[in-house]
């Protein structure tokens, strides 16, 4: 699992590569702290290369979502694949996130 954060001024983009499962969720939690700190900005999670997400991953997404809501930023999730889309739909995450 890799999280690459790029800042192009307008927005922060976090590109997630690989599996976001329970084991590496701790690492993801650490990696995404810059995003948590910038929760007042426009943040995009680019998920086209994310293969897998477990509930621990979902929890971290939700944590970020809450932070962003609290600080008045914006969170957009992009390009989730079919199986992750299914997980989102089971857990009702489609209602919580702006997913494009």
């Amino acid at each position: 699992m890799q999280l690459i954060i790029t800042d192009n001024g307008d927005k922060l983009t976090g590109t997630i590569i690989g599996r976001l499962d329970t084991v590496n969720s701790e690492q993801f939690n650490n990696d995404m702290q810059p995003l948590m700190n910038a929760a007042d900005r426009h943040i995009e999670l680019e998920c086209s290369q994310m293969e897998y997400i477990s509930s621990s991953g979902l929890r971290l997404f939700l944590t970020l979502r809450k932070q962003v809501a609290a600080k008045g930023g914006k969170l957009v999730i992009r390009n989730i694949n079919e199986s992750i889309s299914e997980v989102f739909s089971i857990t009702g995450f489609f209602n919580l996130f702006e997913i494009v």
Partner: protein
Amino acid sequence: MKEITPPDKSIIKHSFASRLSLYILGVCALTFMVAASIFQVTAQRIVKQEASRHAQSELSNVVGIIDDLLLQVQTTTSNMEWAVQKKLDSPDELIEINCQIIRNNKHIIGSSIALRPDYYPEKGKMFAPYAFRKEDGSIERKNLGTADYDYHSQPWYTEAEESGEARWSDPYFDRGGADDIIATYSYPIKDASGKMIAVLTADISLKELADKVLDIHPYPNAYCFMLDCKGHYVVHHKRARILYQDIQTATNYMADRNIEKLIEGMLNQQSGMEKIMDGDKPCYVFYTPINTSGWPVALVCPKEEVYAVIDELTLTIVSVFVLGGLFLLVMCRWIIHRISSPLKQFSKAATQVAHGQLDATLPEIKSEDELAYFRNTFEYMQHSLREHINELELTTSIKNRMEGELQVARRIQMGMIPKVFPPYPERAQLDLYAHLQPAREVGGDLYDFFIINNKLYLIVGDVSGKGVPASLVMAITCRLIRLIAAQTDSPAQMAKALNDSISEDNNTNMFVTMFIGVLNLENGEFRYCNAGHNPPVLALPDSEARFHEVKPNIPIGVMCGFDFTEQSMQLPNHGTLFLYTDGVNEAENKSAELFGNKRMLSVVRRHSCEPVKAIVEHMMNEVNQFAGDAAQSDDITMLCLRYHQAGNDKKAAKPPQTLTIYNDMAQMVQLPDFIEGYCSRLPIPGSLTLSLNLAIEEAMVNCVQYAYAKDEVGEISLSIQWDNEGHELTFELRDKGAPFDPTAAPDPDTTLSAEERPIGGLGILLVRKLMDTVSYSRQSGQNVLTMRKKIYAHTTT
């Protein structure tokens, strides 16, 4: 269907009869008006001519009479000249001549011989013996020349003296003799030297002439008058005018230029006619002079009286027309009503026919006209309708019978193909489903399958053509195949035997394309022969579906003695074999587009992990959806087989595998490899493996975190078992921690907003949703969580 109601009679606002009558009347009126105008113009011209001719003739008639009278007077007078000459020497006898003149002409009322002054010195200056007729007819004599009557200054004397010619005086009131309006004819008597010595006169009473003139009455209010040469009235029905008024004065009030022309013409002794306005009344005035005396006579005719005859005529004609028109209208209506009344009866009959009463009575038509023709046509229509309906009833009954027979045939045909599915529930290695849908009641497609000596025979065929003929060939083929299969297990031999049998006496040149396959259920060897049929589709789970290349050979029934080539292959484990007829890939929609191989392959691929029944049903749905409203043009047949090498394949007989870890999160990294490793040898698509992985991970993480106390070390084991016959994966998760039933917790509310959502609780939800069944039990001090997933029934939740 739109309801059709009988026509409403109230739409007839203007009946045929009244309309036609109005048209006829209109044309008549127009014609009459044109004729009347022409008549009026012509009549006016003719009447005017006639009136003019009539008036002029009356006028010249009276003028002629007067002229005649005057001429007689002239002649009587002039004839006495010699007597005067002879008696000049005896003055006292001259009076006798006068008497003689009066006696000679009854019109002459008085006569004198007025001698020039002092002709007879003994008689004085004036000597004019004068005889005149008294009212009693006796003749009286007297001398004209008296102290108060100087005849030498009278116009009758002076004019004769001056001109030296005999002439008529203008009428005047005679005071000297007759005491009446008279006119005098003066005849000068001359001596040998030509010197006038006396004037011989004859007087006539104007009264006589006036009677003749006033007697002219060609029209009720027409009147005649006469002038003297200077324009004074001498005869007029208004007596006051006579001698006291001249025509110029009398007509001064008329501002009409024609009056001047009239007066000028009359005074110049011309004849003619003028149209003048007498006040507001137009009049025609005809005039002509009396030749002998030059007195103009005029006849005044009011125009309205002249034309009265035309008005009368016009009134008569208009009355006749109006009465005639009314009569025509009544007659037209009556006749047209009489003629068109059968139409109403026809209309009634047509309504009856429309209601199914085909023998509706028609009106009797005695004439030989269009109506009679119409009646014949109508009758013919009724007759034809009856015949057609009878024919239709017959046809319908035949059709119903045939349809009934066809339904029976359909049941028989469908009874010839196996239709119980699954056909071999006891054989776990076989998943087989087939479907046949004829385009009509019966069809020419066929499929069959049966097991002889642990070999599965598969046949899919398509008889050329459709309907009953194809179905008969199909029936024969089905029966023959079974007979032949009892003798050989070689598809090529079967094809050959079938071909030879069918080709023989194949008068109708029908043929059958067919795929014959024989699967050895012991080793999965699949031998097949393709007799001109579509190539089968072969698909592996989660992989592309493709056509399996086959040798085409020729269709059954085309050529007797043909040697068919046989092929063989190893049927891939869990592979799907899809056999079909061209009714599938050549199904057409309304735009005549074909369903096509691409769509067919795509359907097989997308559903290659589902039971074969689902593949066939999905295919049928997609074909139906694609065809839409287009009628099914060809029989559709599909046969789908999946073969699992149960018992023979070591991989397939997968023993349960177990992964055991400690309650350390880091050990969870082994999970993905363990699950993928197990599932990769099963017919499971990759995406399903991922979701299974997720469910197991969630369940296992739960154990790692909560099964044991934090400082305690304990084992957690996961075992996977594949049930090949049930197509089911069973996961069992065991730990030796405190009893805990994760399934007891309620699912989190997934409809809450981000702010309200708790961070945890998603794990067990995912487990439940991704697995088919999740159950907890406590077995010999262990928590056991059992999760099951059917692989073919549901690849997605």
